[in-house]
């Protein structure tokens, strides 16, 4: 991993509410990640973790609440502009199946960042080299392992030079032996000073990399604090019960 300068921003969610029909998925969530900080969101399935993450790049528009990037509200700003500043990595990679690995990165560089063909290819190759996949450039994504595909997805997001990165269970679809490589890559990003908001089931990662851990249940953040506080001295019965099941 190179140590190219990153421009990161703080990100803040204020009193976020989201409902799907009559189902209240988020019921007033407040969360702040300082610039360069790493926050992990943990909690049982269906607690609203992914929905919360998707509010940050407004793939999910909240019914109520505010979103701030770098201290400025962007809840009414152009969503495409917000997404240019916030990168996202998905559980199922979502690489473009009809394009080569290189073109997966070139395509958004050209169409969103409006780089020339040559510049885009150069940036794409650099990013691929950073994740150790320079030699995979001409292949189809389907020719790669899950771990390799997720590396490409991370390289693609990074190529857009985001100020904040979102990881939505980025290792959940991977074979166990491939998980560590991706987590190491994410830890590298954290140490580079990129602002990370990570939804994860990897408690070891949350403990060792996060500055702060937020525990969600039933659409609310029930408890949050440093990893040591959350994992060693959980206060709420719900968190105690959750940890007893996953640790």
């Amino acid at each position, binding site marked *: 991993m190179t140590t190219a300068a990153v421009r990161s921003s703080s990100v803040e969610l204020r009193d976020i509410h989201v409902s799907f029909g009559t189902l209240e998925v988020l019921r007033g969530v407040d969360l702040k990640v300082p610039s360069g900080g790493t926050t992990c969101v943990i909690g049982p399935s269906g607690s609203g973790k992914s929905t919360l993450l998707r509010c940050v*790049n407004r*793939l999910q528009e909240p019914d109520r609440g505010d979103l701030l990037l770098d201290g400025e509200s962007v809840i009414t700003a152009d*969503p*495409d*502009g917000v*997404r*240019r500043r*916030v*990168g*996202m990595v*998905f559980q*199922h990679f*979502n*690489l*473009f*199946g*009809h394009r*080569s*690995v290189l*073109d997966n990165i070139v*395509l*958004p560089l050209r*169409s*969103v960042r409006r780089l020339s063909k040559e510049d885009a290819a150069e940036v794409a190759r650099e990013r691929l080299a950073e994740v150790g996949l320079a030699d995979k*450039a*001409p*292949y*189809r*994504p*389907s*020719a790669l392992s899950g771990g390799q*595909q997720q590396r490409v*997805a991370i390289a*693609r*997001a990074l190529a*857009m030079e985001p100020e904040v990165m979102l990881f939505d269970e980025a290792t959940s*679809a991977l074979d166990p032996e491939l998980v560590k490589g991706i987590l190491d890559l994410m830890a590298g990003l954290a140490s580079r000073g990129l602002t990370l908001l990570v939804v994860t089931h990897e408690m070891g990662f949350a403990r060792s990399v996060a500055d702060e851990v937020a525990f969600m249940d039933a659409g609310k953040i029930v408890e949050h604090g440093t990893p040591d506080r959350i994992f060693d001295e959980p206060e709420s019965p719900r968190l105690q019960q959750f940890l007893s099941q996953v640790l």
Partner: protein
Amino acid sequence: MDQFFDTFLNWDYIWQVFPDLLKTGLGNTLILSVSSALIGTVLGMVLAVMGLSAKRWLRWPARVYTDIFRGLPAILTILVIGQGLFTLARGLIGTNPYPLGILALSLIASAYIGEIFRSGIQSVDKGQLEASRALGMSYTKAMLLVVIPQGVRRVLPALVNQFIALVKDSTLVYFLGFITSQRELFRIGQDLAANTGNQSPLVAAGVVYLVITIPLTHLVNFIDKRLQTGGKVRPGLGQSNELSAGGVMGQ
């Protein structure tokens, strides 16, 4: 047995009709079917995108249009447009029903092709659109660059099948009464068959149709095979194998 051969394979009539079939009929059949395939594909894509829109005022007209043109017998549509508009639009297009024949075939084709495109686009994993949007692409760009290319690839066999149907349906302009130089394959065969009371000219026309449609049928099979093997790991084919949609993306 002799009578059978004389009725269907009378070489005199076949030789008599073949020059017209090739000089006039083949060209007209190809003009009718290729131009309505092109127009139908463009209109069909517009219908598909409208049909997938979140906006009701776009979705609704596409739905109504599709239901009507798929629900009517082709011959009825062709006659209503070819004769009806012929009377109405005489000032604009002169006395030539040929463009109206193409228009009618195009409108019918677009309804079917629209549904083919729509199902293809709908089958693309929604993560593809989400990832594109998350990278900052607009909805239009994401659809044009990521979703539609993958959706179309999957329905290429169905699309070619539709083109085959179009070649066959182009016979229906028969009822619009084109002038001699505008006659397509079926009309030329039928005209001589009617004059002679012998079916051999129609058999000859049929042979020419098969020369067009059978290779297309095999093209469908070929594309199908390519699509099925395309999803597997095929190192080295990264950039050249354009037909291989990533099979892994559906998960």
